[in-house]
């Protein structure tokens, strides 16, 4: 039972019976959690639009509130007042369920993330597994959206999205095995306390794979084939409007915030930092901000990949990298652990030294191996014109 829950319960039990106090504590933490996710989404939307603007040498939203800070709320308010259209041929119950099915995993994902010392809503002993299971629900929601819209672009987007999500699930899960192996536990609180050296240094390869895979699972720009604006109208959420669209947007941007929180917990040692007993939440928020900046930076930099390039990246690049990482971690844990199976800080530093070299060389090797597949053939001056493809010779027709 987490510290915040305990605190609310002990305050409430002074005047209320025990079972009501449990109810009050649970409900209040639930409200805090839902609002934290939605506020995180709003802050991330603002941050993303401002930063993308600056990356493009623009200013970004700056009309509404200081530095345009109220822009997400204005957007949300506008969407709430818009007409909520359900297409005539849509599968109505599924269509209505989609926004809920999209937003729920994001909120549920935050339930196990420790914001500070003993401040997770639920300190599950299978936290990592829970996070993976809950994020996979998004796949179903995307397919529901595409199927129920009865729109070809929505269906195309959903099919692409599901393909991307299923492909990237594999390297992400395998990269997380390394984290679980070093920690010796699946609880996120244990993962944080095990990171005397941040896992970013101990297994940079796993961090790289997890960041790329999460970026793909969130349908963000280098991997946003599911909602490619220039190809499909808006992908799987083409037909959604009004409140439903607002909820889907909140789920997308809240998903980035929640994933950043999970990445911070798994690889950047969570709330740990100087004076972490009191300032843990501050370190946590700072690290989440840094990871969110990296997400925005990647989005501002890379153009959208083709579908075949995305699949090549998942199966020919990230999957081998995650397997190499798993193999290296397994061997290192096997040889470095002491009799009771515990890794000391010195052991972690040794692993970091080995793994950083391994990561650089592995990324260079596999990067050059798939560069043929991913990068286009660039014409070099002086190389001459490319050979024209020989025309298929049709037999001349006999004229009668």
């Amino acid at each position, binding site marked *: 039972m987490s510290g915040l829950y305990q605190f609310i319960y002990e305050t409430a039990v002074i005047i209320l019976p025990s079972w009501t106090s449990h109810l009050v504590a649970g409900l209040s933490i639930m409200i805090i959690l839902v609002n934290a996710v939605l506020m995180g989404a709003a802050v991330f939307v603002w941050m993303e639009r401002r930063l993308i*603007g600056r990356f*493009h*040498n623009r200013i970004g939203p*700056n009309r509404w509130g200081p530095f345009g800070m109220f822009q997400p709320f204005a957007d949300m308010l506008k969407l709430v007042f818009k007409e909520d259209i359900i297409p005539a041929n849509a599968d109505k119950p599924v269509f209505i369920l989609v926004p809920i099915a999209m937003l729920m995993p994001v909120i549920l994902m935050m339930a196990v993330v420790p914001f500070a010392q003993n401040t997770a809503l639920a300190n599950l002993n299978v936290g990592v597994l829970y996070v993976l299971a809950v994020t996979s629900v998004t796949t179903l929601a995307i397919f529901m959206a595409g199927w129920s819209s009865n729109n070809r672009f929505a269906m195309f987007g959903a099919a692409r999205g599901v393909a991307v999500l299923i492909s990237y699930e594999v390297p992400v899960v395998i990269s997380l095995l390394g984290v679980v192996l070093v920690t010796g536990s699946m609880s996120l609180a244990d993962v944080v306390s095990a990171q005397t050296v941040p896992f970013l240094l101990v297994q940079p390869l796993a961090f790289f794979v997890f960041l790329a895979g999460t970026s793909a699972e969130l349908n963000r720009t280098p991997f946003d084939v599911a909602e490619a604006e220039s190809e499909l109208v808006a992908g799987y959420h083409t037909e959604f409007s009004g409140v439903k669209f607002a909820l889907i947007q909140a789920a997308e941007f809240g998903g980035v915030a929640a994933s950043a929180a999970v990445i911070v917990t798994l690889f950047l040692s969570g709330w740990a930092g100087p004076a972490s007993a009191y300032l843990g939440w501050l370190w946590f928020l700072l690290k989440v901000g840094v990871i969110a900046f990296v997400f925005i930076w*990647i989005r*501002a*930099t890379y153009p959208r990949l083709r579908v075949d390039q995305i699949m090549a990246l998942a199966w020919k690049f990230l999957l081998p990298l995650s397997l190499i990482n798993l193999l290296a971690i397994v061997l290192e844990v096997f040889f470095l652990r002491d009799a009771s199976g515990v890794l000391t800080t010195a052991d972690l530093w040794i692993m970091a030294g080995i793994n950083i070299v391994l990561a650089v060389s592995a*990324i260079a090797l596999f*990067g050059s191996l798939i*560069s043929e597949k991913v990068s286009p053939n660039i014409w070099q001056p002086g190389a001459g014109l490319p050979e024209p493809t020989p025309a298929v010779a049709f037999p001349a027709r006999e004229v009668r």
Partner: protein
Amino acid sequence: MFGLSMAAGLLVTLKNLTKKPFTVQYPEERVKQHPRFRGEEFVWYEERCTGCASCAKYCPLGIIKIETSPSETLPQQGDKYRLEVFDIQIFRCMFCGLCVEACPYDALFMGSGFEQGQYSRKEMVIGIDDLRHADKKPSTYLRPQLESANYDPRSGKPLDWKDVGRESWDWHLKEKAGMRLARPTPPDYAGGPQAQEESNTSERTGGETKFGGPA
């Protein structure tokens, strides 16, 4: 190679992040406008206009409508038509400036504004009263006398009809010999550049014209 170009791409965007944004916050800030800008709200000087309707004839779209009636004065006293109607359908205007180019008496000038948006087409027709009361800040488009005087319609003061002509042109003087317009004596070209300079200053001190110098 080795994915290094990916990192190079990240550095390029990071470099752009640190640059100052190009955006000009329009209603609060404005880009500096060229004095030769061809804008809306034509500047028209009724005192100079003879109602010859050259502008209407030269307009490629035919959107200028001029109706005149004979005035009471004798031709020797500087005859001109009296204008009854001078409508410009500004919503069809493409700001080519041919009307300004055609005007033989420097009566019509391009304006420098661009914020005359209205809600209906009827309101987008500039009538004679609008032209009378418009800001007299002419653009220097095709008006070399304004340009050589470095007049800027955005920052300069409104100009009177006496300030904007090119009366020093000889053909102009001969053609309108009978007109009783107050105009400066033409500069003396015989004395060379030195004399020309002096004649210019004398004009200015005379207070007759500001832009009377040779173009």
